């Protein structure tokens, strides 16, 4: 994934630092609580939500289980409609394809619709190395790009910024990139939106190349779908002469009819609206309307590795609504940056370690970035059992075992950092199978309880750094039971 995140500290360290930022916590709390209540209302409007959710789950599962067939069908239908299909096994290949396509047009700037796939592969940075400037046009992406920041949310990448911070970024940075912000810009959201409109307008009107992702690709018709709010998507999808869409291979649905499920569940889950302001659907190219050239780049980049895991593959059902982020108590407090990936929150905690593997410190720590409360599973519109996958990935980190990386079977080694835990478990097994030893040990612990440290020494330090050690009672339970016969004789 994007080089931006290389060398990120593990989640506990990053989260610990983020927790010290009171502004960040305030911004996140405000935003996630606003959207939570609205989403619940939008979902409650549909009596058949459970049936829609189940249909969405089954459509995605069926597609994934026959993905080879649907990919070939999609390629045929997109080609028949006038598009050109490219295949990219990894981020580098996708970036190379896009850069070559842009260069072939003779252009040195492109306008972009917000897309997770192009974020994931670090397309903007790769294009810049080739002398091509990519302008983000989604308001939140613009805030991130102007602020030289990193995204912290799937839907609203600048969720960690409040209106005053956004105003300051616009005032100081817009002039560097194009039309400056108005002198008297205030922090009223409507004024900030107006400033973005004016700043980006000239870029839209002169753009010759647009780059997008897609929310859905329909195999039977070759139709691509982009769901958005601002109209920047429509601008990028219709005004340029060349359109390049980079889409993960898991975004396929088999039929046109399948959209009837997701166009009901996605807007209500993401922005809590009955319908988002704009949805664009296009099938190849249309004479006299929109781009004359259309390229579709199908992206693997770890998706087939994820598909090979029978428990973990359900993560590929994700439609990127971000409802799981908005309800997550861990995300609300730690913020998106701590996850060290363009995919933060609960879905990121199961997607990043599967797409990238668990070799790095941050990826090995992500399956633990959860209290397993299950709120994410409850709200997921395609019923991804995130807690189940988290536990599965924890097991993989600790125990190691077979996995697939870049299409090759590998044997993962057990994590080193868990030696102390394994030793503690072995000691516990020894003690619990020897009643006499357990009793002596418990009595000794009770008698010495005033001398116990509040934190563990040595390898136990990390464990007790975030937990209180359990208080040892003055008398072991089994002694108390024998002395009082379970409290029946009234003594305490």
């Amino acid at each position, binding site marked *: 994934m994007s080089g931006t995140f290389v060398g990120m500290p593990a989640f506990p360290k990053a989260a610990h630092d983020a927790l010290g930022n009171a502004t960040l916590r305030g911004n996140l709390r405000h935003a996630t609580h606003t959207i939570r209540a609205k989403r619940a209302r939008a979902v409650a409007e549909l009596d058949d939500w459970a049936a829609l959710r189940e249909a969405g789950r089954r459509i995605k599962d069926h597609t994934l289980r026959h993905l080879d067939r649907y990919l070939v069908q999609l390629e045929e239908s997109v080609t028949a409609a006038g598009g050109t299909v490219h295949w990219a096994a990894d981020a580098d290949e996708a970036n190379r394809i896009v850069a070559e396509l842009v260069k072939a047009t003779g252009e040195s700037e492109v306008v972009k619709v917000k897309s997770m796939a192009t974020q994931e592969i670090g397309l903007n940075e790769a294009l810049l190395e080739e002398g091509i400037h990519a302008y983000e046009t989604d308001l939140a992406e613009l805030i991130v790009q102007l602020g030289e920041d990193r995204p912290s949310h799937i839907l609203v990448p600048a969720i960690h910024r409040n209106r005053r911070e956004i105003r300051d970024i616009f005032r100081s940075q817009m002039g560097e990139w194009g039309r400056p912000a108005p002198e008297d810009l205030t922090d009223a959201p409507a004024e900030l939106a107006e400033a973005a*409109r004016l700043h980006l307008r000239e870029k839209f009107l002169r753009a010759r190349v647009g780059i997008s992702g897609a929310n859905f690709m329909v195999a039977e018709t070759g139709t691509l779908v982009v769901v958005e709010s601002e109209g920047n998507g429509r601008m990028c999808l219709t005004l340029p002469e060349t359109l390049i869409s980079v889409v993960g291979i898991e975004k396929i649905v088999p039929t046109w009819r399948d959209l009837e499920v997701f166009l009901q569940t996605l807007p209500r889950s993401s922005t809590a609206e009955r*319908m988002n302001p704009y949805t664009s*659907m296009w099938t190849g190219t249309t004479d006299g309307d929109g781009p004359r050239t259309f390229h579709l780049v199908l992206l693997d980049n770890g998706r087939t590795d994820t598909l090979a895991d029978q428990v973990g593959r359900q993560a590929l059902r994700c439609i990127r609504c971000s409802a799981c982020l908005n309800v997550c108590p861990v995300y609300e407090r730690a913020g998106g940056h701590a996850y060290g990936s363009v995919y933060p929150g609960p879905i990121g905690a199961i997607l990043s370690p599967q797409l990238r593997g668990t070799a790095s410190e941050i990826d090995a720590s992500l399956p633990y970035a959860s209290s397993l409360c299950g709120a994410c599973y409850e709200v997921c519109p395609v019923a991804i059992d995130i807690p189940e996958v988290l536990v599965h990935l924890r097991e993989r980190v600790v125990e190691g075992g077979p996995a697939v990386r870049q299409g090759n079977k590998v044997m993962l080694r057990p994590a080193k950092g868990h030696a102390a835990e394994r030793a503690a478990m072995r000691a516990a097994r020894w003690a619990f199978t020897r009643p006499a030893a357990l009793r002596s040990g418990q009595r000794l612990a009770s008698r010495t309880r005033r001398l116990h440290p509040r934190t563990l020494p040595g390898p136990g330090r990390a464990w007790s750094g975030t937990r209180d050690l359990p208080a040892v009672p003055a008398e072991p339970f089994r002694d108390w039971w024998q002395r009082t016969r379970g409290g029946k004789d009234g003594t305490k």
Partner: protein
Amino acid sequence: MSSRERILGRVRRALADVTPDERPYAEAVPRDYLREHGARTTEQTVELLAGNLADYRAIVHRSDAEELPYLVMRLLNQHGSQEVLVPPGLPPEWMSAADPVRIHDRAVSTAQRLDQVDSVVTGCAVAIAETGTIVLDGSPDQGRRRISLIPDHHICVVRVPDQVVSSVPQALERLDPARPLTWISGPSATSDIELDRVEGVHGPRTLEVVLLS
């Protein structure tokens, strides 16, 4: 080996556990969700459309064929429009009373030129009551996608009740995926500042929907 073959090979190896006799698509997906939500008369469905459009800040008007030219005239005057874009197949009588200069969208017109036009008047392909959505499909009374995008003021005429459906599933049945489709639910908006909805970003900031009966 091409990347196409490499990726398809990886997919097939990843799916080694999938048996060839798995349930086919038609049986794999239960369709027991509703075709529409609630039972309504035609008039109630139109009412719901009007209510949901207004809920997302579209301005809703009602008119009949006789009154429509004067309503369009009034709306354009209120907006102070000097020029109005018209798609090639817009019924001429809709614009018969309008004062502003009619600009026809031609293939050679640049986006910069269209940016100077104040308003656009279009028909639509279908309107969805439950979500307050109008869908354009590039038919002659709607024109190219860009004409309903660049001007800041969009007047969209919906023929009621013929063009109105209750739900998203019913709308998809009526639409042709081979055409370029634009689904519009209220004026351009964003939730990007503190996850709160604000109207008015890149698309038309004023959306007026005329329900024509």
